[in-house]
């Protein structure tokens, strides 16, 4: 009862916490009931924005003011990178692919306004892009938005599982290492983390496949390893939840382990500093248990750097996913991007880069908002 009252009070003082919890419910609930992932993410995003606005509206408005020009810059840069290679006809050939004919080039020049100045083309493209029209892939014969919409859930799931797994490992390990700072437990945890950080995820993926999918290594009659988990393919959650997780386990672990090691080291470092703060000394003097000090008092103020790195890493995971998705034959954005680059599928490359870049900006915007929810120093600032 007392705990419930405490939670109610916390929610009243910090509505951001309530909406953040609501966002989590939307994500998990939406996923369980089969809500399209994009809608679930948009719903969660909106809840966090509303919550953060209630906590510190001015801070959110300032972030939004920065967000808009950032998005314009990101989209302009993406557009420029892809459209600065040659003249209008070169670009049209790029779009058509190797089978392009002169007549086809003329059509593409007209359709994509390639004879217009770059800034006019950018505005036309942006106006199409915000309406979800990213063009049509000549090689795949599909609208680019459809290609991305099909691939994005796979990558989002992979990144979500990898991040959840990384945090699930890193937070207890980081807290433990900080608690046992410079003692044997800390040294073991730090050594393991360093080793995990040193192994590239594609090497780890191959090792995981060997030991968990292909039966491992055999010496005489003894076999070290198993065939518990699949080495390839994607099974949608809605088709078979158990098989979905079995198929996502190895790629998620391969992506998560390096992340977990980094998170663990960051959390450990920040937490060691926090544990030397006066309010921790006061709590100890008042006889608060170590567990409560660690989890209820020290963890939150120690997690802001972790939160920042978490936001940055979410986008960089796409780079890792490019290799991991290929190794595990997952039809995600990384695979789509890699294939499109090799096939010179110009519009798909442009579309995926745009989505990843915008996603990166939005995730980091979200992280900024979470500061307002979690950090009293940000929450109570009145500029």
């Amino acid at each position, binding site marked *: 009862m007392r705990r419930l009252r405490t939670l109610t009070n916390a929610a009243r003082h910090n509505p951001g916490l309530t909406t953040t919890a609501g966002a989590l419910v939307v994500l998990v609930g939406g996923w369980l009931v089969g809500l399209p992932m994009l809608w679930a993410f948009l719903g969660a995003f909106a809840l966090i924005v509303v919550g953060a606005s209630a906590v510190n509206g001015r801070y959110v408005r300032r972030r939004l003011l920065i967000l808009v020009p950032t998005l314009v810059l990101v989209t302009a840069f993406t557009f420029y990178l892809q459209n600065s290679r040659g003249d209008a006809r070169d670009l049209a050939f790029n779009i058509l*692919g*190797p*089978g392009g*004919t002169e007549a086809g080039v003329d059509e593409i020049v007209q359709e994509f306004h390639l004879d217009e100045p770059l800034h006019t083309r950018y505005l036309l493209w942006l106006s199409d892009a915000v309406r979800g029209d990213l063009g049509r892939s000549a*090689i*795949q*014969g*599909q609208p680019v938005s459809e*290609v991305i919409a*099909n*691939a994005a859930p*796979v990558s989002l799931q992979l990144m979500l599982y990898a991040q959840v797994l990384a945090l699930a490992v890193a937070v207890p390990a980081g807290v433990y290492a900080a608690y046992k700072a410079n003692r044997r437990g800390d040294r073991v945890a730090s050594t393991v983390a360093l080793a995990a950080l040193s192994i590239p995820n594609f090497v780890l993926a191959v090792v995981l*496949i060997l030991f968990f*999918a*292909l039966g491992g290594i055999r010496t005489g009659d003894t076999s070290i390893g198993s*065939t518990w988990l*699949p*080495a*390839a*393919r*994607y099974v949608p959650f809605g088709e078979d939840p158990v098989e979905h997780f079995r198929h996502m386990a190895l790629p998620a672990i391969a992506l998560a382990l390096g992340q977990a090691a980094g998170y663990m080291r960051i959390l450990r470092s920040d937490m060691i500093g926090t544990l030397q703060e006066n309010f921790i000394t006061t709590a100890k003097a008042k006889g608060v248990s170590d567990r409560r000090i660690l989890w209820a008092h020290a963890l939150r103020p120690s997690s802001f750097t972790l939160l920042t790195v978490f936001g940055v890493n979410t986008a960089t995971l796409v780079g890792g996913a490019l290799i991991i*998705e*290929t*190794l*595990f*034959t*997952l*039809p*995600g954005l990384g*695979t*789509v991007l*890699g*294939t499109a*680059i*090799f*096939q*010179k*599928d110009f519009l798909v490359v442009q579309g995926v880069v745009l989505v990843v870049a915008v996603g990166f900006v939005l995730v980091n915007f979200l992280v900024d908002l979470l500061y307002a929810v979690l950090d009293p120093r940000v929450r109570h600032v009145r500029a």
Partner: protein
Amino acid sequence: MIRRKRRGDLADHRGPWMRRRPWLGGLAVLVLAVGACGGNDGDDASDDANESTADEAGDPVQGGTLVYGLEADTANGWAPYRASYATSGYIPLSAISDSLFAVNDDGEIVPLLASAVDHNEDYTQWTITVRDGITFHDGTPLDAEAVKFNIETCAGSPLTGAAYASVGPVTASGQTVTIQTKNGPWVALPAYFGYGSCGYMMSKDWLASLPDVPQRDPDGPYYDAALAATPADGDPAAPVGVGAFTFDSYEPGNGNVFRAVRNEDYWRGPNGITDEDLPYLDAIEAVVAVDIDSRANALRSGEFDAMHTANAETIAELMDDDSLETVVSDRYGETNYIMLNVAQGTNAMTGAAIDPAGANADNPMLDVHCRRALAHAIDLDRLAEERGGGISTPANGPFPPGSRGYLEDSGYPAYDLDAAQSEMDTCLEELGTDSISFDFNTTNDPFNVETNTLIISMWQEAFGNQVSANITPIEQGQYIGLALLGNFDVFAWRNHGGTDPDQQLLWWISAASAPIGQQALNFGRFSDEVIDENLITIRTNPDEDARTQAAEAINERFGEQVYNLWLGWTIWGISSAPYVNDQVLNTLPDGATGIELAFAGRHQVNQIWCDEGSCE
């Protein structure tokens, strides 16, 4: 040619499949013993195959979903006139439809969807009768009108039209289609409707509903105003054929699946017209897994039930894996080679200048002695051992053993460093230089880059500073474009599979050679009157001996002029889990044995079955 093991005593290394199918071991030994000795080596073995399959693997059982790992996706949907079919595309295609003609185990073209084929005396008119009672998956009949429509889509398409340039007016009546040829006799016409994509029949209604079907093109030869006025709402990615499996779903891209389910009304099934029980599988799922290691791992871990590859190193590993069953073949396969740009002079057929701008004037490959020198300096046995997993076969021409035109000694320069140096000295003297240099294009696939780097190292070992080759890796998508336009000095390539050398006409005839910068199918842009004359003989002369002699003459001409540096004949391997049976079996409706794994990895999927009807 089918082989199971690569080294040592085959009998000592038999895996599970070999134990259940002793015929294949016998065939492999036979093949190794007699070497490449023509197309009759499969007769006895095939008879044995039928017996031992029934005796030892039991009767086929219905049921199961086969998951097949493909090396690549197919671009531009599945309609034959517009899709870029590679080997990987033929697995879904052969599930969805069947071809007008098949190839029997002797390499002969025989009717399949057709019931009969005939021609007039001078081979300028062909009459094809189609079996009655076959329906497409949409319920429409396979009749002469449907066949005519299919033929015209391919003849009118920018992608496939060049191969069907000799197709003249086509008429349809009932179940009989008549094709007039253009440009004289065409003795090998049925081969063009056999194992190539345009031989596979698709529903006329479906083709007609596609937005870019040639009959909708007002500037095309088959424009149909009434058809063009109808809605173009068809989906080129949802094919409608007559095959053993009906299209269910498809998502393009790596990791995605093409799924087809059993066609209960298959013409070779219980409700069909041939008293057969095909297919046995409930469904087939073709999953694109571009990375070869991922594909092999997925097979080994049980995610895939079968897969294919042309990577000789991987094939060798799969053959050594006793937990898998691997079929290997190079029958009527493609040849790996280095294409040389020899664009110069005047086109022997059109009279036009081949390189009017002199874009290729500095290419040392214009000199036949330079070409011969490079050929003499490539150690093909070493190449086969180091890059071909010890199982690939060095090539001495474009026709592999068993194909018409194959010669044991084609006159192609053999590995001989003294002869190489002598030719190089002549080359340098004629060019008036101390050294030659050129760009060597290859795809950016690491395996190909390494292979071609090895070849360059052989030239450097042989000639030192006299030869400088700069390797240039290029993305796959851009690669074909450079070949079409002739923008290269030296180019790694693979092509020329098939049962009939007539199918090489469009790649080698002078008329297919255009100036650099214009698209031409004769990529190397050679214009050779001897080759032209013999290609025309092959196309127009019905005398089998004359056609064989013409093909051999072409082979010898290539050996003499060295327009290409032949490397090896492509091997394809199909590997599957032990519960998968008859992976490549191809019994024809009349009970005769059709060709199994051939034509660069193509095979039928309608006779595959899994133990106890479960592919797990």
